[in-house]
């Protein structure tokens, strides 16, 4: 299976006077999981809703292999969508919800039961959605997305509300779908949430593109620091400062930047300071992300 290429071209959406999406362009390729990141209010949901034809763009296009969603011959068999505001009638059972949409797309009830089992909702299928937990609604939303066995999956915050076991499950699940050649686009407002799942990243801020590329590419721009501590902390700080490092004292030791762990160890040895702690830290990724989206890094 090869999923369609998602192409967003010069997309702009204004609601009254506010611009939710501002001249946004990016591509999503099949075969990998692409993370769509940005803080709340960055325009992620608007972009995704425009992509699937629920919102009319002010300018620009959003297509699947060149076709707008409304032009797709079998939309549910081409694109599976799970949007954040999971929209279910509370008085209808999960199974009936899928039967209703399935009927509109010519999908048999047998397939409904199949996807419900897949997402782990077989036991709750005949209960009313009103009694579902947030995690169960997320699973039902995912079941809806999978209903037509589509080559493209567009998922808005699918990890939100899942328990740790559910998070581990969905990570493996998404990677499995991408490995089959599908196009998988997953939005989130937390980099750490999708860091272990995604291969590529599209980061937006205030409706504009901030970064498009691989996770490694984002990592390359990050700085590393070393956390170090000794019984004689002052002597250690003097030695490292003399070596040209930037040293800040903190409760959990000295935070050193400008030197790598090897160099820090060597300078401590030369100064005759016995270390009790030496940890190279890569705290920069989330920081880089926050700087990109204009919220400033956390010190």
């Amino acid at each position, binding site marked *: 299976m090869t999923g369609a290429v998602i192409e967003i071209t010069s997309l702009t959406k204004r609601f009254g006077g506010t611009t939710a999406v501002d001249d946004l362009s990016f591509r999503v390729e099949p075969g990998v999981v692409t993370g769509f990141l940005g803080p709340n209010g960055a325009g992620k*949901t*608007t972009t995704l*809703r425009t992509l*699937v*034809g*629920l*919102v*009319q763009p002010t300018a620009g296009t959003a297509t699947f292999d060149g076709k707008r*969603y*409304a032009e*797709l011959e079998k*939309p*549910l068999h081409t694109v599976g*969508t799970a*949007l954040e*505001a999971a*929209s*279910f*009638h*509370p*008085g*209808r*059972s999960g199974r*009936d*919800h899928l*039967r*209703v*949409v399935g*009927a*509109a*797309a*010519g999908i048999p009830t047998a397939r409904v039961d199949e996807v419900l089992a897949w997402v782990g909702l077989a036991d709750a299928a005949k209960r009313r959605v009103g009694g579902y937990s947030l995690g169960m609604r997320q699973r039902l939303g995912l079941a*809806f997305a999978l209903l037509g066995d589509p080559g493209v999956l567009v998922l808005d915050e699918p990890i939100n509300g899942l328990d740790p076991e559910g998070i581990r499950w969905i990570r493996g699940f998404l990677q499995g779908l991408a490995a089959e050649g599908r196009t998988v686009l997953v939005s989130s407002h937390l980099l750490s949430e999708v860091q272990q799942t995604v291969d590529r990243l599209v980061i937006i801020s205030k409706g504009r593109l901030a970064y498009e590329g691989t996770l490694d590419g984002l990592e390359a721009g990050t700085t590393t620091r070393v956390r170090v501590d000794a019984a004689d902390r002052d002597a250690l700080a003097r030695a490292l400062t003399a070596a040209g490092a930037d040293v800040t004292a903190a409760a959990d030791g000295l935070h050193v930047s400008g030197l790598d762990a090897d160099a820090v160890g060597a300078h401590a040895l030369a100064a005759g300071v016995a270390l009790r702690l030496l940890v190279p830290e890569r705290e920069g990724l989330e920081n880089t992300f926050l700087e990109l989206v204009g919220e400033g890094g956390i010190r």
Partner: protein
Amino acid sequence: MLRSLRSELLKFTTTRAWWVLALILFVWVGFTAGGIAALGGVLVDESQGMIGQDAIPPLVYSVVTATGYVFPLLFGALASTTEFRHQTLTPTFLATPRRGTVLVGKVGAGLVGGVVFGLVGLAATVGVGALVLGIVGVDTALDASETWALIARALLAMALWAVIGVGLGVLMPNQVAVIVSVLAFTQFLEPLLRVAASFWEWTAAVGRFLPGAATDALVGSSIYSLASAGGVSDALEWWQGGLVLAGYAVLFLVAGALTTWRRDVT
């Protein structure tokens, strides 16, 4: 198109609203029809020939539309507004991105639902009504072809009212607002307007086009025709009444399709 219709019908059968409404309809019109049938027996006796036996059965059977049309109307309106209220338009439009197709499916399902409401209501008015008529000794007229023509026209009226509801719900997506409007108009405003309209000739000419009056014209009988005696003479033909109702449905549907139905689903 057919898939959309199937999906819309499934939406009815997988929630409880429709059969709760149908149950209330059955009890409500059954009770009213029974009461009028009992009263009819007295009227025939007391009026000394002024009111003939044959005038009573149509009055009893047409209670289904005369007082029951609000049920398919509410049903149709709820079928539309519930999609906005629970944001189920999102999955609906994802499955069928051509919104016009969805609307046609809704209209088709509304017609089917309206016929079901008609059958339930007629089971009550004809069933209970004929039973009481039999008890008080008035001919049930169930062997007359006019009676069955009236029943068929009542079914059509109920189906049209459901579609009017579908259109109204699309035009006015706020569920509370639409329920309040429907009840205020059908239970209070329209009866008042009809009485007021009967005072002058020119207002009566306009009053014929009120939806309730058009319904009575379509069905051909109503307890309202008793209340405004003599007014029936300038009522519309039955087919004109049907066209007026269909006109309301088309008006609401087109207005809704051009406004709320085209909006962004956020």
